[in-house]
Structure formats: C-alpha cells, structure tokens
C-alpha cells in the first residue's frame, strides 16, 4: 500500500473529520466489526440510540439505508462509505470511487422461478419475453440484454418472492444469501447472475483533497479484511 502524501495541498483544509456512510440493515453488524478492526470506535452505534450521526475520534459515522450510500457519497455529503456491490451496480450511474472489496456480506444475485414450474421457459418460447419481478430493475435488464433475451421488468419494493407465487411475473431476480427464503417460498435458483460483497467507496473530490486520510482508512480497512 502506497500512502501518498498531500504536500502542495496546504490550501485544501479539511472541514472537520472524515464523514463515513454506514449502512443499516443486513450489512450493519459486520460493518461495525470491520470498522472496529480498523480502529474506529463503534461502541455508540451498538447501543439502541436513535441518532443517525455519531462523532468518534477522527471519523464521523453517518448511518443510512445501504441504497442511499451512493447518493450521499456521490454528492460529497459523506466523504467515504460502505455499501453492497448490488447497490453500486443498480446505481452504476452514480460516480463514486470503489476502493476496496471488504469481503463480507457475501450473496448472489440470481434468477429464480417456482419449483418445477415451467412458466419462465414457456413465456420465453411462446411470448418471446419473460416477466421478471425485481427490486433491481437495471441489473436484471442488463443481464438479460447481455444474454440476448427480452424481459418485461416489474419493479416491486417489498418481498419480491411473493410476485411469482400469485401470478405477478414468471420469475424474480433477487439477492440470495443462504437461499432459505427462496426455499420456504417454494422457489428455486435457475441462473446465477453475479456475486456481491460489501465495498468501501469514496467521493471523487474527497479522494483527491483528503488523500492522506482516505488512504490511511483504506489501508487500515485492508488490514482488517486480511484479518
């Protein structure tokens, strides 16, 4: 790891500590663990505080939904952040720098259909297109476009497993960690689309103007990942 200095940048005064966007939800616990490993004090976040912003020594932690992380980081409201690769791919037009694969939060984006049900294949054959319910319309569209098939994307916000069970769509594109939810809803994986883990991202301008701090945190996280 090369930690570049910032000589010649005397003018680029930092405005307070680095702001780090922390994802609530499925990645939350492991994010706190890796931050602990990188020497960031996360004890306050572990309590049942309803606060959204936590000042720690050297870094301000801002908690939010994982899908909001690219928005805050792109705008520079947060300097750096942690979120899933699935979120980054779904919002690939958000320009953030992807600096590090944090390794945790492993899951797969898959195409799933009802067990033993042939409606995916039948729609494809007889209608020339499949109806796919998903929370990830862009990833789904890109996958089927890249494999030369047409789909009608049905975007849903909640439990996507419900859709094919009651006839909204022939199948789903969704994120699967253990596969238990699919199994319990009588669904099965038909295709693997891609694998996702948590990533450390940075705002473009922060990456330039706060190079030393960003590089130091990246290096510490890298060490924490290595274990």
């Amino acid at each position: 790891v090369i930690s570049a200095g910032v000589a010649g940048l005397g003018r680029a005064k930092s405005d307070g500590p680095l702001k780090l966007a922390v994802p609530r939800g499925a990645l939350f616990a492991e994010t706190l663990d890796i931050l602990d490993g990188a020497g960031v004090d996360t004890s306050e976040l572990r309590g049942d505080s309803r606060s959204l912003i936590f000042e720690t020594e050297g870094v301000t932690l801002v908690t939010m939904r994982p899908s909001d992380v690219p928005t805050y980081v792109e705008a520079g409201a947060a300097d750096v952040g942690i979120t899933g690769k699935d979120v980054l791919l779904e919002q690939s037009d958000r320009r953030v720098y992807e600096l590090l694969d944090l390794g945790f939060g492993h899951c797969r984006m898959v195409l799933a259909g009802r067990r033993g049900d042939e409606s995916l294949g039948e729609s494809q054959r007889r209608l020339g297109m499949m109806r796919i319910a998903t929370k990830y319309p862009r990833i789904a569209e890109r996958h089927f476009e890249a494999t030369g098939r047409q789909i009608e994307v049905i975007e849903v916000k909640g439990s996507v497993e419900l859709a094919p069970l009651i006839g909204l769509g022939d199948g789903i594109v969704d994120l699967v960690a253990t596969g238990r939810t699919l199994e319990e809803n009588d669904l099965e994986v038909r295709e693997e689309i891609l694998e996702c883990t948590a990533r450390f991202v940075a705002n473009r301008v922060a990456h330039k103007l706060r190079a030393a701090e960003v590089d130091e945190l990246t290096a510490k996280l890298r060490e924490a990942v290595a274990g």
Partner: protein
Amino acid sequence: MIHPIPPGTRDVLPDEMRELRRLNRALIEVFEDRGYGEVATPAIEYDQVLARGDARASEGAYRFFDERGDLLALRSDMTVPIARLVASRFADAEPPLRLCYLASAHRAVRPQRGQMREFVQAGVELIGAPAPQGTAEVVEVLEAALKAAGLDRAVIGLGDADLYRQLLTELGIEGAARDSVLERLEMHDLVGLEAELSEIAGIGAEQVATCVALSQLRGGKEVLGQARGLGGVAVERATARLQETYDELERRGVADRVQIDLGLLRDRGYYSGAIVEVYDPALGHVLGGGGRYDGLLKRFGVDLPAAGFALYLERVHVAQMEESRRGRES
C-alpha cells in the same frame, strides 16, 4: 398558471443573474488580461463536423434535422467548435492563438440525477503552444481564474492522459480487454480493475499491483519519485512529462495549487498528455477540467498542438456561495 420547462434547464432571476454576471466579468477579465480574445460560435452545428472532433462525446448530444434534412447538433462543449473555428478562420495565422469563451453547451441527462441539460462554461484555448510551456500557461490562467472567483482553497489536479494507454501497450493488453481496463480506471473501480487485470493471460500479480498502486498516487512532486519506483517505460515517460510541466509551474509560482495525480483520466476522447481537473473542498463535484489535445486540430486539417480548460460556471458559483457561507460560520 405554471408552464413547465424541461428538467435540467432553468430560468435565472435577477439576484442570481447579478452574481453570475459579476463572476463572468471577473473571469473574462482574467482571460483578456492574459491575451485571450473572446469568441462566440453558434450553439447549433452540423453533427458531422462536431463528431469529427469527438465521436464519443457526441453520443450524448442533442440532434435534430433542419428543413433541408441535414443532421444538426447542439454543441456539448466549446473545445470542438473552437477547433473547427481555428481551422476555418485562422489556418494561416501565426501561432500561438489565444482564445477564450463564455458559452452554454448541452448534454443529454439521466433523469432525476440533478444533471444539467444546459450549462455555461467559461474557458480558454491555447492553440499552437506545445508542452510543457503551453500547458503551464493554461494552468497559470486557470489559477488566476480561481483566484478571481475567490476560490482560495480550490486545487488543480494534474495528470497524464497517455500514461495508461502507453502502460497497457507496454504490458501487451489490447482489444476488448484494453477498453475494459481503461473504463475501470476511468470509473476508478479498483476492485473491478484488479479482477479484470488478473484475468488477462500473461499479467502477473506484480503488474496488477503496479497498475492499482499507480492509480492511487496523488500529492506533491514526491509522487513522481514514488511512481518512478514502480518502474516501466510508460511510467518513466509520463513522469518525465509531468516533471517538466511541474517544474515550469514552479517557475511560474503556481505549483502550490497543483496536485499531481497519476490516477486522473477524463471522459472526453480527444485528450493527450497533460490533463487537469479542478476541485474545491466545499463541493463534492468537479468544478471543471481540461488538458492537452495535441491531435484534435489535426482532425480538422490544421496540425497544431493545443491545450485549454473549461470551468462549469454554475458550479463555480455554488462553490463561491459555499465558501462565503463557510467564511461566515467560522
């Protein structure tokens, strides 16, 4: 009654206009003082002519047919129209030519991203002055423009557009893999870059690490030494070019503002050699950029080296406001 205007466009009302006008005047004055004459070109040009300059950038342009069935396009920057203008009007003039502009340009937007369909750029083009002197002059003008705008904390990133093109050639990476690696570098997707490079036959772990490490080198002139330590002919050449430019900037007394950045890549297709980007700590977005485009004028039939920059006027204005707000708070 409300009559809508397209998203990404806006009306400017007197309070804002007054401030923008003041900023415009300050910038044009800086350019004129340094011998850059202001020019204007039509907002609408033949698509074929603009595409000659940068086929890739013209993808995002607005196009339409005129009454004769000719394909027209709204300009998406001023560099290409000025290259066209220089070739048509100043082909026999004694170089160097110094031109500046304050002009609107148009680009297609992605919905709901707060992007501007119509924006104003203020910039200069220095035609016929090669690196490193020409580059240093342009950076010097940019520095003066930032000072005139009151952005004392703004930083100019200085990189080299040919570094990775030459490095990939040196490593024997061609074709689709090359495009894909360059795209990762431009997006600054280090995880993807590492994965992509590792899959290419004949590229060892050490070369992957070199590429990734290079893209993270940014800072004062010590990074040139660090880069040289990573080895290779392409790196040696790029650092030599950067060193020359930086020495010249030091001589002109503007190096303090400059951050050397070996990870810098810009998305317009015509850049060669030095490239610059402008940042202000008060704003999460890039304020502007530019660099050398020594091959661009040749596409219009005049073989002259050139360099320039453009500032996004609205963003500079936002940065001014944020800086003054910050000044009041502290």
